[in-house]
């Protein structure tokens, strides 16, 4: 039925690719962390706490990237009924939710020395929080239904509705903030960043995405194997009569 979606073929392909990406991931993390922790300057205002950025910003990037990944997977799953695309979305969601949580937690830990408070109802923070809720909804919908195929397609509809809404939510939340609060917001896009800081940031950004690729492949293999077991059980049961 789905010639291009052969799970066994996918498993074999994943096994070939995985060692290479794992190697690249280790390399990227090692060099990125070296630059981030030792070979980059402390900020003249923020001091050493600026190094929080190297954990925080790539996590925030990943949270958005993975949401987009899920949306594309959902689209493919709904239009072409591609079973592996459903699994890709399912496998990616907890990783995305974790990165979003990481971005929120590191952000608030960074915020304490910076602004003197753990949480601000700032537009950017609030919209990331909302994205975290969308991730939770997607995961919960997968969990709520017994039939995986149905659960996956329902969750895919939600993911697509969410992707339409996400820019609106982000836009409205940022607008709301400027209306209600004085802008006490640190902005990344203000002064250009020195290259010694930009280099580790970008390397770690890539490292995070590579890490995502590794884990999502692992999780997809896991899902495929679970289905294999499930199918074997069913066949064994029907042979029993």
């Amino acid at each position, binding site marked *: 039925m789905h010639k291009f979606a052969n799970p066994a073929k996918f498993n074999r392909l994943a096994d070939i690719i995985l060692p290479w990406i794992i190697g690249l991931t280790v390399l990227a993390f090692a060099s990125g962390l070296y630059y981030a922790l030792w070979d980059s300057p402390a900020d003249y205002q923020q001091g050493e706490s600026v190094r929080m950025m190297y954990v925080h910003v790539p996590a925030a990037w990943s949270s958005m990237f993975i949401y987009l990944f899920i949306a594309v997977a959902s689209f493919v799953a709904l239009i072409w009924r591609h079973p592996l695309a459903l699994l890709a979305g399912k496998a990616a969601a907890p990783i995305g939710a974790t990165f979003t949580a990481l971005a929120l937690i590191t952000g608030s830990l960074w915020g304490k020395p910076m602004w003197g408070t753990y949480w601000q109802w700032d537009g950017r923070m609030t919209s990331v929080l909302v994205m975290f809720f969308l991730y939770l*909804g997607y995961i*919960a*919908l997968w969990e*709520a239904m017994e039939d995986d195929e149905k659960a996956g397609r329902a969750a895919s509809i939600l993911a697509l*509705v*969410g992707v339409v*809404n996400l820019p609106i*939510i982000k836009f*409205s939340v940022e607008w*709301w903030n400027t209306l209600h609060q004085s802008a006490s917001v640190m902005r990344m896009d203000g002064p250009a960043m020195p290259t010694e800081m930009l280099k580790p940031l970008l390397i770690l950004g890539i490292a995070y995405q590579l890490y995502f690729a590794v884990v999502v492949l692992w999780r997809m293999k896991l899902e495929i194997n679970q289905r294999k077991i499930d199918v074997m059980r069913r066949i064994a049961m029907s042979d029993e009569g």
Partner: protein
Amino acid sequence: MTKPLSTAAIFKGVVARDIRLAWSQGGTGTMALSFFLIAVTLFPFGVGPETEILARIAAGVIWVVALLACLLSLDRLFQADYEDGSLDDLALSPLGLVGIAFAKITAHWCATILPLIVVAPLLALLLNLPSGAYQFLVLSLLIGSPALSLLGAIGAALTVSVRRGGVLMSLLVLPLYIPTLIFGVGAVDAASMMGNPLPHLALLGAVSLLSLLIAPFAAAGALRLALE
């Protein structure tokens, strides 16, 4: 079967049936309205009776509670029909499932949300809303609340086959409600602080229109899934 088919008549029939059901025994109309009244009156107990504080939060309280009342009633929007089998009949109607979803959303708004809007000024009075803001409270609810029914219907359709899906539905729908809430309250706040509420109302209308474009299709897709 050469008779021309009146889809408008089917649409009207579904709307009338659902409004009727919402206000008969076991319907959600009275429930949502009572919830709205009681929940709003809880706030003075929670934050104290100082009129300035109440006046400041009045718009937000009314909008948030209206949103929650809507959410409570959406739980049964498709589930009742799913459980008794009439969703099969609705799906087989010549109107098509998208039209049916839209008819049911329309009925939900008329039967459940409109009464809330009617009593909202009364509750605003209890919360001491500044006098210039009343018409904008009603206007913002009229323009924005269709988005609540529309977006909520997506959540209701997605969770229709889930037992006790109400909690799950809140998790899915509440994040989507945020823009409506922000612009709705923004319009009333602007009016009560001598600002210009029109940009907020325009954005609120845009959110409702966009929801109108998405929701009937997404809800119909989710319902079709539930019927399989």
